[in-house]
Structures are given as C-alpha cells and as structure tokens.
C-alpha cells in the first residue's frame, strides 16, 4: 500500500507550504487518491477550490500523516471524488457554486450554497449573471404508500440558526431526511480575498460564533505556519486555556440542551447556570464572554492577571462541586434515558467513512482528536484522555461531552499551574513572496481546518472548513427509522454549525 509520501513524490511539490506537504498532481493520481478514500485507507479532511484549481486534504489516520493534493483544471472541470467517496458530494457542489468548476462524473449536480439570490453565479471564479428564473430545488424522492412530507425551516421554532429540513415520514417514523443549507452564507471566503491579516483574523473569528476561539486559533496557526513564526510560550499556553474554556462552556450548554429537547428542563436550567459561570469567568479573565478576537497571528492580545486566574479557579471549583450531581441525575432518570438510549444511532462505519470529528465521531468509535492525534502545542505537554464510545446514540454523545468536561477541567488546572511567564505576541517580518499555511485545531464540535495563501503580506485565498461538513450528512443517516418527535433531540446531540458550514 503506497503511503501519502509516495503520493507526494508522484506530483510537483509546492515549496512554500507548511507544515504538511502539498503537491500538484495529474488526473490519474487524483483518481487514485479518491479510490484510496473510497477504500477507507485514507480520510478526507477537506476539498476546496480556487478559480482554476481544486485541492484535497487527506490524512492517513494510523500514522497521522497529512497531505494536500492539487489538480489544475484549465478546462474548468476535474474528476469527481464523490463518485467514489460520497462525503465529497456537498463539497463538490459548493466548489461549483463558488468557482464554476465541474466535478465530472458526479451524480449530484444540484446547487448547494447558491440559492440563486446572489445576483451573480460563480462569485469567486469567472462571474456570470444569475439565472433569470431559478428552477425549484429538487429534493431527493422517497416513494411508497402513505408517505407524507414535513418541511421545516429556514426559520425554526427555537432560537437557532437558519436551515431547511425536508422530512419524508411514514406515520411517525422518518423514512428520509434531507437537509438544505446555505441560508447563512455570507461569502466569508470572498471577503477574505485580499484582506489584511488583521481583518482576516476578525472574519475568521466570526465564521461560527460558538467556535470563535477555535477558528481564531486555527487561522492564526495557519498564518504562523506560512510565515514560520515562533509564538511566545505564554501565548501558546493561554490559547489552550481559551480553547478549553470554550469547550467547557459549550459542552455544558449542550448537555443541558439535549435534556431540554427531551423535555427534562431541570438539567437544562442547572447546566445553563454552570455555563453562565464559565462565560462570566471568561469575561473577567479576558474581557469578552465568548473570548472573541483574543487569539491573533503571532500570539494573543489579552493577558491573564491574578484576578482572572482566581475567578477561573473558583469557577472550576463550582463545577466540580455541582456537576457530579447533574451527571447522577442524568444517569438515574429512567424517563430521560428512555429518550436518549438507542436513539439516533450513528454506526461506526459511517463515522469512519465521513471522518466525522468531535463528539460525533468519538461516540461512534472514531478516536480522532486533533489535540492528541496531531499534538499541536501545548497539548503535546499536557495530560488528558480522549474518551471514545461505540454505541453512537444520543446517550453516547452526551457521555462523550460529560467526559470531555472532566478532561477540560483537568487541562485548565494543568495550564494554570504551569503557565509560563513572558511576552504575549511575536511580530511577523513582512514576507512578500507567496506562502501557504495550514492548520487543524480541535474546537468543541470537532476539527476546524484552515488553509491559506499569503501574498504581499495579505490573504490571497483562505479556506475555512468546519467540522460540520462531515457531520451534517450523518444526521440524515442517524435519524432514519426514528420518530419525527425525536428529531430535535438527535439534532441537538449533533449540534452541527449552520454558519460555520454555510460560510
């Protein structure tokens, strides 16, 4: 079996790409890589476009080797990956919507992010005028006696992001769910083009509000990889502190939120209080409840003082005091367990095929956690477990979060105990030649990937891949055969991002 290194040797290696290699390959090598993905030997980490190039990031999971292969498409077409490997479907449709590049051989050519409302087609490629009349979106068919459709969204009943769900049900049972997303598409990758590093960092931190730290972290690491910057030690450790506080807040919120969608509001009320405590501590320590715009290329903008350390420690004590009783409550309430156990099962084989990250992957047997597998600093120097379960139901996704809350508490302790002194930020020397960088950071939801090319000290192209790209399609699979009334529960246990996905 050839390794990723062999694949790289087949192509023309790009010199200024770090930390992982990128090679420009030809059609047969591209197809070979797609075949290996289909065989399950490699995992697809991302697939994105440029005006006349497509890039594919792949990983060899056992060795944690990562590489990017690129294919020039002078004829505005490239061999489809999705014809071999279904996780690429939506990514290819997006590449067509944004750049006009056609995935030849794909069986799904429907638009994805483009709802024919932009007034323009292929906004990041060779622009042409929008269609005068958009044809109605063709949902996939489901046929049989007595089936009916339920259309939900884009405006939902709860305070959540916009998206459309089309259910086909037989009585109460879901036969097929099809998502339609793109409503929150803001054209962030378009705004990134030619942006200064400062503005680009601001945009990256606003891709997905609940992962603002993770995105700023990944973006900054990609810039630093491109510019070969050394980040001061104190900033490296503070970044992990921010990331763990973010994980803690959202996991606590999710655990309560899932129980709330099973109408068990007591858990929701008590978890929300703990979550609020974390947000308030973050505000005292870093001046912003969601810790937005703190991580920037080169370091961090806000130091942690004694008052901040104190409030974080106090908050950890409160969580350690109150959280165990909540776990016990969850575990011992039969009516709640009745809703979560064996509901919305995601099979391990699918989680592996889609390289699903975060609690979704780890509740279905996929042990990938970028903090462990890629061991970026300071996680290479921290002790923590990566919890993995195989049941793949709502209950398993709750338990992964519970265990990760415990791990984050321990990580924050270790960081506060060992936080080095020193400067907060390194300055970048201006570099004028093109440089490419890439980074993968573990957000609370899963691995966030950022790839970028800098030219003349500005962003030429920046691609941000949310973990949700490989999680949303799995929700369609997990809900099949469940009752419609359990959809909110399953959906919340996935908690995929809309804005992060739509960009």
């Amino acid at each position, binding site marked *: 079996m050839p390794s990723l290194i062999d694949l790289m040797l087949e192509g023309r290696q790009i010199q200024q790409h770090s930390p992982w290699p990128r090679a420009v390959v030809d059609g047969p090598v591209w197809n070979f890589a797609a075949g290996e993905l289909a065989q399950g030997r490699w995992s697809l980490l991302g697939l994105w476009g440029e005006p006349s190039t497509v890039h594919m990031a792949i990983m060899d999971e056992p060795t944690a080797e990562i590489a990017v292969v690129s294919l020039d498409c002078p004829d505005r077409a490239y061999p489809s990956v999705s014809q071999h490997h279904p996780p690429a479907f939506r990514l290819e449709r997006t590449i067509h919507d944004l750049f006009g590049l056609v995935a030849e051989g794909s069986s799904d050519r429907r638009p994805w992010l483009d709802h024919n409302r*932009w007034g323009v087609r292929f906004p990041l490629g060779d622009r042409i005028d929008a269609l005068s009349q958009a044809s109605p979106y063709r949902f996939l068919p489901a046929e049989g006696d007595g089936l009916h459709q339920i259309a939900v969204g884009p405006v939902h009943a709860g305070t959540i992001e*916009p998206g459309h769900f089309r259910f086909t049900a037989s009585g109460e049972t879901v036969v097929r769910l099809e998502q339609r997303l793109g409503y929150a598409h803001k054209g962030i990758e378009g*705004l990134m083009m030619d942006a200064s590093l400062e*503005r680009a960092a601001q945009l990256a931190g606003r891709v997905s509000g609940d992962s603002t730290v993770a995105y700023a972290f990944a973006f900054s690491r990609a810039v630093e990889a491109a510019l070969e910057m050394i980040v001061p030690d104190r900033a490296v450790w503070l970044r992990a502190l921010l990331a763990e506080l973010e994980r803690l807040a959202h996991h606590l919120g999710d655990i309560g939120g899932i129980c709330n969608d099973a109408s068990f509001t007591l858990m929701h009320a*008590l978890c929300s*209080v703990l979550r609020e405590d974390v947000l308030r501590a973050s505000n005292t320590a870093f001046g912003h409840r969601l810790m937005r715009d703190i991580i920037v290329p080169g370091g961090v903008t806000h130091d942690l003082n004694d008052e901040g350390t104190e409030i974080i420690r106090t908050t950890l004590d409160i969580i350690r005091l109150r959280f165990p009783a909540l776990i016990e409550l969850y575990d011992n309430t039969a009516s709640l367990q009745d809703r979560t156990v064996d509901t919305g099962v995601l099979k391990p084989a699918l989680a592996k095929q889609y390289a699903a990250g975060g609690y979704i992957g780890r509740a279905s047997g996929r042990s990938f956690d970028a903090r462990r597998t890629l061991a970026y600093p300071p996680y290479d120097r921290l002790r923590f477990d990566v919890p993995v379960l195989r049941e793949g139901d709502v209950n398993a996704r709750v338990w992964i979060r519970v265990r990760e809350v415990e791990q984050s508490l321990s990580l924050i302790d270790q960081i506060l105990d060992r936080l080095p002194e020193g400067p907060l930020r390194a300055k970048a020397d201006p570099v004028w030649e093109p440089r490419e960088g890439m980074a993968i950071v573990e957000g609370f939801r899963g691995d966030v990937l950022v790839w970028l090319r800098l030219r003349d000290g500005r962003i030429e192209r920046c691609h941000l891949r949310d973990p949700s790209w490989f999680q949303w399609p799995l929700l369609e699979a997990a809900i099949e055969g469940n009752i419609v009334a359990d959809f909110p529960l399953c959906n919340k246990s996935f908690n995929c991002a809309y804005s992060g996905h739509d960009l």
Partner: protein
Amino acid sequence: MRKLLFESLFRRPFTERAPSPDDAAVIELATAVAQAARRRLGRSLSIREVDAGSCNGCELEIHALNNAYYDVERFGIRFVASPRHADVLMVTGPVTKNMRDALERTYDAVPNPKWVIAVGDCAQDGGCFAGSYAVVGGVSEVVPVDLHIPGCPPTPTAMLKGLLALLERVDAGATAT
C-alpha cells in the same frame, strides 16, 4: 432529583436584580411605540427570534437571557415559537441574500402592532460582512427597525436593558392615553 429540588427550596435564587433600562435605547424608542400598546399587550411581550444569517454568537447570548441569572420571563418577556404569536421580532445577523425572503415573510406573519429589534453590530449595517456579494446589509434594509442593540455580540445585560426600555416605553405610552 428530589435532593436537587429540595436544595433549591433553601438556596438563594440565582436570579439577579434587573439592570436599569438603557437611556440611549429609551430615546431611540421615543417615537416608535404606539400609545395603544399597553392596552393591547399589558406588561408582556412575546418575542420571535429570527437569525437572518448571523454567526450564531448573538443567538448564544439570547439563549443566556433565559438562564436563571437573567430570567427574562420574570418581566413578562417570552420567546415564542411562531411569528403569529409574537409582538416583537428580534433579528440577528447581517441579512444574507439567501435569508431575505424568509425574513420578510416572517415579518409579514407577525400581527400588528409589532416592533422589530435588531440585535448585534451585523444587524445594524452588515458589520464586518458588509459589501459581500451574499449579504444584503443591516436589518433595516429589509424590514423597519424600532430598536437596535449594538455589540458583537451584545451581552445579555445589554439586551435586557434594551428590552426593559421597550417595556417602559409601552407603559409610558399607556399612561399618556
């Protein structure tokens, strides 16, 4: 569960004192609220939230309004599931072109009298997303806005101040009748 419930009988409530209404917001509202509002609504507001393309940051803080610390329901403010049950439309985000239609239709579904609160910097003028091919701009480009609560995202306290200002205005309007 009994133990947890029992504890809460004796523990002081998490809920905190209300902040004073935001002066700036009161002035902004001065012309917005009809005098008949109090008669029709009493001292309660039903809010329908619409995410018109936000990053989800504002939604997180709107959620926080419902937690025990802020407990927005004690003021008679409720988040409802349908625009047809709402007095107030609370809109976040730069309005994306893909959401423009849905926002207009949701606004049309809210019965009169109704108010629109735009939440967050993006909702004012598109924020850092202004100028994109996929973004219309601020909420007022699509529906009339009565109150704007700035911030990225605004804190729950800032939102509470704005909402209380709206309620006071409704009250003042009623007294004047």
